[in-house]
């Protein structure tokens, strides 16, 4: 079914946030905190980062003033939506000794439904990838499912590409094409809104608006084209699957291992990385609680089996990460594990650049 785009103003955006919270959603969106644009609870338009942008490069992020008051005039920040759909720390169950031996109680799933405001195209792709991992395989992750179902996604077409973005080369942006309920394209003080689902169309109908003209739509397309042309990074992605798997002993792995801190930041900021570890904690009363937390293939214990770690060297751990992202992910889930958001480049303390590493391996 096809939907009709509309134009809304700032009042319309305010009405959108209002309507979502009236409908019982916990509205999450971009806001400024600790000199960065993070995703957090949003009460209204005032919480959005008006007039801010970011400068990003390998290992570097700086918030800067824009010369206008755009609300979405920056690229993606340190947080990914996965922290809400796939939380960093999750209680799974509790076991207590009882007369039968033990009693196990699963931790309840939260009842809140999320509305995400300002989801970028790369992030929509990342969510779609985690959907594949957690929902579309032989096993479903009930925790992800409980959070993902009923989530309302308001996308924003990027008007500015960040210094480390390369979605254009991954075919994951900058224009949102699927997986959203509504998508916004920002002009000064005005937004083109395009529904992507019945729920989105229904919500749009409740907002103050005017019908979009051909010219509005054309303008929005131009925004995306301009953004695509200004990508900070480029990844030559064709054939990268075979390239990496054919070069598992390439000398570049040693080179990157000398720089890599094996700190795990890249895996934690990546919107698609999904690995977790469980840990059981007993209290002294004899009860045990199992929690699950984000893990990282950069830690030694990640691959521990009796007798030692399978990947003791940082070299093998970096190689695991990158080949998983760009190659074995394709075999596992039919898609690349990288959406070109650039977070792993920006938030790597030493600025290791996945596009550069691919280039180096390609180079010989």
């Amino acid at each position, binding site marked *: 079914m096809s939907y009709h785009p509309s134009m809304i103003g700032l009042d319309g955006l305010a009405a959108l946030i209002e309507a979502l919270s009236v409908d019982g959603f916990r509205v999450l969106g971009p806001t400024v*905190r*600790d*000199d*960065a644009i*993070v995703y957090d609870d949003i009460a209204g338009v005032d919480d959005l980062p008006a007039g801010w942008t970011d400068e990003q490069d390998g*290992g*570097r*992020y*700086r*918030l800067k003033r824009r010369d206008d008051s755009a609300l979405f005039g920056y690229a993606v*920040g*340190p*947080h990914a939506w996965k*922290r809400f759909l796939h939380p*960093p*720390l999750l209680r799974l169950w509790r076991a207590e*000794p009882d007369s039968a031996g033990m009693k196990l109680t699963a931790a309840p799933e939260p009842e809140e439904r999320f509305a995400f405001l300002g989801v970028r195209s790369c992030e929509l792709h990342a969510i779609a990838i985690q959907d594949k991992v957690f929902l579309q395989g032989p096993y479903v992750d009930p925790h992800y499912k409980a959070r993902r179902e009923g989530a309302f996604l308001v996308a924003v077409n990027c008007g500015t590409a960040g210094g480390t973005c390369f979605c254009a080369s991954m075919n994951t942006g900058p224009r949102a094409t699927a997986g959203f309920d509504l998508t916004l394209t920002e002009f000064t003080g005005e937004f083109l809104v395009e529904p992507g689902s019945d729920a989105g169309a229904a919500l749009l109908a409740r907002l103050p608006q005017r019908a979009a003209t051909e010219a509005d739509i054309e303008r929005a397309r131009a925004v995306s084209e301009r953004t695509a042309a200004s990508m900070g990074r480029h990844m030559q992605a064709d054939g990268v699957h075979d390239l990496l798997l054919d070069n598992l002993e390439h000398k570049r792995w040693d080179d990157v291992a*000398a*720089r*890599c*801190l*094996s*700190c*795990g*930041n890249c895996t*934690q*900021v990546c919107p698609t990385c999904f690995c977790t*570890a469980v*840990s*059981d*904690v*007993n*209290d*002294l*009363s*004899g009860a045990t609680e199992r929690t699950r*937390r*984000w893990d*990282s293939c*950069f*830690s*030694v*214990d990640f691959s521990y089996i009796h007798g030692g770690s399978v990947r003791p*060297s*940082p070299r093998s751990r970096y190689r695991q990460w990158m080949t998983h992202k760009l190659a074995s992910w394709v075999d596992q889930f039919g898609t690349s594990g990288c959406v070109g958001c650039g977070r792993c480049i*920006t*938030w790597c*303390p*030493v600025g290791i650049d996945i596009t550069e590493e691919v280039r180096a391996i390609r180079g010989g």
Partner: protein
Amino acid sequence: MAKPPRKPKLAVWKFASCDGCQLSLLDCEDELLAVAGAVEIAYFPEATRAVLKGPYDISLVEGSVTTQHDAERLLEVRRQSRRLITIGACATAAGIQGLRNFKDVREFTSVVYAHPEFIETLETSTPISTHVEVDYELRGCPIDKHQLLEVLTAFLNGRRPNIPAHSVCVECKARGTVCVLVRGAAACLGPVTHAGCGAICPAYNRGCYGCFGPKETPNAVSLAPRLVDAGMDKTGLGRVYRTFNPVADAFKKESERHGT
């Protein structure tokens, strides 16, 4: 699960230290009475006058060895302990008092004391593991009380303590803190520092100063230029690695690399 017939005996020993790590046990306000219920507190002078004779099932050892008398006392502690767990940076990596190892102790003594001849002290501050076999080393200056409880329950249940050796960054990200190093707010040792504190410092808008000591496979050499970008000078680099864990291998090497 069958309950052990008698409660395991717990002893808490102190060597050169600030008492902070053993205080962590008394800071477990919600759990202290449960701990006291699960173990027999057999020796813990900071908490009780009562003294039960060894051997002890678990000994927690705080502090580093700085006197000949302590070195001898430690041997006896080890003899009396089935499991010996060191708690904190002093016991594990010599602690702040380990700074003497890089200086002339006689000069130190004369700075502090009017009559240096009254003071009996060794030239160096050494970790417990230099003197006796250690069953487990818990990191931190001070240790994290939840980790202490985890180690105790793990030993009581005969399992491996769940104490990850990865970087502080992993905890920092879980906490949702925006990296202070990347956003240019501070020089941060998080990427080379052992997790456990919960990434407190970055959450308080400052760089980690390494109080949990080095993580597994630390790469301080690669981090150094970034710390310089963030405002640390060469002597600062040398100093920051030589503070609370001065003899931890990776930190010691890095500090020496900067000429300290």
